[in-house]
């Protein structure tokens, strides 16, 4: 083979290419209820009529509460709030698949999922009103605190799942994140750990197509998010996130897999965020009204499921009216509870820094009390 300095000459009949062949994995988007409301009887999940109505009520309640929260924020009664509108099926369907002893690890937008798994919605409202008291679920409700730093909750869920397995428990751990979250290091590190240690965890991605304003195509070059599971050695599945029955069915299977010790699953639920990223965002800057309209009018998860229930004789206009009235009252009660929570003591910021306050915090707390007393006296 001839070779001159700085320049390699080719020798005929030697192979120079063809080693690299792109592999494009196929991931169909699972759907049970088609956009037009039709379905195959054989695909229906194992849910009673009452359970299906319960799914519907949860979704409607989630939407009503979401609207309330948005209104409250506009009126200055709540701080910045991340709305869930449009993602009700993805959250309700998945959370409903958990047993009471299973754990739910949210990001920050999972108010609907958390509620389905037992988190009192007034606590979630309280949290977004700026009170730490709203962050933790009561004892017995297996919902972890929300996580603002993106995807950091994935390793948390994996660690807790791993701990449960070490203890011989048969529990499943469901952790939520968005399409944007799959770009973060912690998603990759957490998924990798989950695969290596066969953690009983279900990684649930709500792909709502935007991370604030950054669209999915800018988040990943992969055609689907589900296929990322292949890299970590466990199954990935893609589901229509606005089909509550499909979300339920897929999550249920993944949860049972985890419980049986068969390891993790990555679920990609394709959905859409009707509202802004948070109330501090203006989505008209990066999305068209037509696009939002398309999702709201042709693929709304609540509408689709209502049509299904009606087609099976399980729902009627009269029931809808009754439900709306009942849920609006419940929503009002949620708001009342949150807003009537006793006001915080300024010294509350010291109370839970350590099991026992070190001297410096004790002195600072005293100083604050002094300051408050002086302020009080000055009035």
């Amino acid at each position, binding site marked *: 083979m001839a070779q001159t300095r700085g320049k390699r000459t080719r020798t005929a009949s030697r192979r120079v290419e063809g080693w690299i062949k792109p592999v494009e994995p196929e991931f169909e988007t699972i759907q049970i209820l088609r956009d037009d409301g039709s379905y195959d009887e054989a695909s229906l999940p194992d849910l009673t009529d009452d359970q299906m109505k319960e799914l519907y009520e949860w979704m409607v309640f989630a939407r009503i509460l979401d609207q309330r929260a948005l209104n409250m924020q506009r009126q200055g009664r709540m701080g910045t709030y991340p709305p869930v509108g449009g993602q009700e099926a993805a959250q309700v369907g998945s959370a409903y698949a958990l047993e009471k002893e299973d754990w739910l690890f949210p990001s920050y937008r999972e108010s609907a999922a958390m509620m389905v798994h037992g988190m009192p919605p007034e606590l979630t409202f309280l949290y977004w009103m700026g009170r730490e008291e709203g962050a933790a679920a009561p004892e017995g409700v297996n919902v972890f*605190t929300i996580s603002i730093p993106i995807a950091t909750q*994935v*390793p948390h869920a*994996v660690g807790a799942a791993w701990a449960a397995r*070490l203890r011989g428990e048969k529990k499943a751990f469901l952790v939520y994140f968005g399409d944007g979250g799959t770009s973060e290091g912690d998603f990759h590190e957490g998924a990798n750990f989950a695969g290596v240690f066969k953690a009983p965890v279900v990684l649930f991605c709500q792909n709502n197509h935007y991370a604030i304003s950054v669209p999915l195509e800018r988040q990943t070059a992969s055609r689907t998010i589900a296929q990322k599971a292949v890299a970590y050695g466990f199954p990935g599945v893609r589901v229509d996130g606005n089909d509550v029955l499909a979300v339920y069915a897929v999550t249920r299977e993944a949860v049972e897999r985890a419980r049986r010790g068969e390891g993790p699953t990555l679920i990609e639920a394709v959905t859409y965020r009707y509202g802004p990223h948070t109330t501090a965002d203006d989505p008209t800057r990066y999305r068209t009204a037509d696009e939002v309209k398309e999702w709201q009018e042709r693929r709304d998860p609540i509408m689709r499921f209502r049509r299904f229930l009606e087609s099976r004789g399980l729902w009627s206009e009269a029931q809808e009216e009754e439900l709306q009235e009942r849920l609006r009252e419940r929503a009002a009660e949620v708001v009342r509870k949150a807003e009537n929570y006793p006001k915080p003591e300024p010294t509350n910021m010291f109370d839970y820094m*350590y099991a026992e306050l070190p001297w410096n915090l004790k002195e600072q707390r005293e100083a604050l009390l002094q300051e408050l007393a002086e302020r009080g006296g000055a009035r």
Partner: protein
Amino acid sequence: MVLGEDVGVNGGVFRATEGLIEEFGPDRVIDTPLAESAIIGTAFGMAVYGLRPVPEIQFCGFLPPAYDQIISHVARIRNRSRGRFTAPMVIRAPYAGGIHAPEHHSESPEAFYAHIPGLKVVIPSTPYDAKGLLISAIRDPDPVLFLEPKSIYRAFREEVPEGEYTVPIGKARLVREGTDVTLIAWGAMVPVAEQAARQVEQEHGWSCEIIDLRTISPLDRDAVVGSVQKTGRCVIVHEAPRQCGLAAELVALINEHALLYLEAPVVRVTGFDTVMPLLALEQEYLPNPQRVVRGIVKAMTF
């Protein structure tokens, strides 16, 4: 539970976890994939779930990838959840320089972590303290960053009781009683301070009181202030860079509680505000007994 890179089969790159996997099995002593954020993040998940994990980061120069998990969650979860969830975990990491290591293997980042509310930071300087403080750290209901000065892992031997005993977190150790000047140090700088103290005693007849802080956060303010009120002079020694290093915090505390007792400004003998150099210049960077002696002279002759 112990988890980290090379902690199991290999026994840890400094052999700190040697023998554990044989005794406790692969479920409790775990070789993890190479991912610091996940090591701390999963340990956090275990801790909030009720276990007591002791994750190891192989060198504290590799703590930065896990910094988000530490500051955003480990240190905050008790506060965020109003006590519903807590993180009783100990993060161990070899610390500081002096072993001719490659880049990033000689860091002294204690100030970064002392500045995080909700975390405790502990740095032992003797075998006895290392065991007692580690047991205290593991028993502590709050998260502890346990930094192990690597240059003195095997520098000297001393009696260490077989059974369990604790050394309290938040309490400094009086290494040497003295009357003329207070030397404050921690980690591998404690033996350096001791050497400097011996030298000035010989050369000048000065009596140094030496305090080994042992806990960086929460600081033992009373030990520091009590000593400076007695001696009226103070020299603080740390490897970490000067600006915003722990010495600055100690000077502020001395200022607040012992200003009128001072005969001279507090002297800081620290690493330079440079990147720690590679091994060829390592000994020029690290505070050595000569530099400490110069600092003591400055304090004594002000």
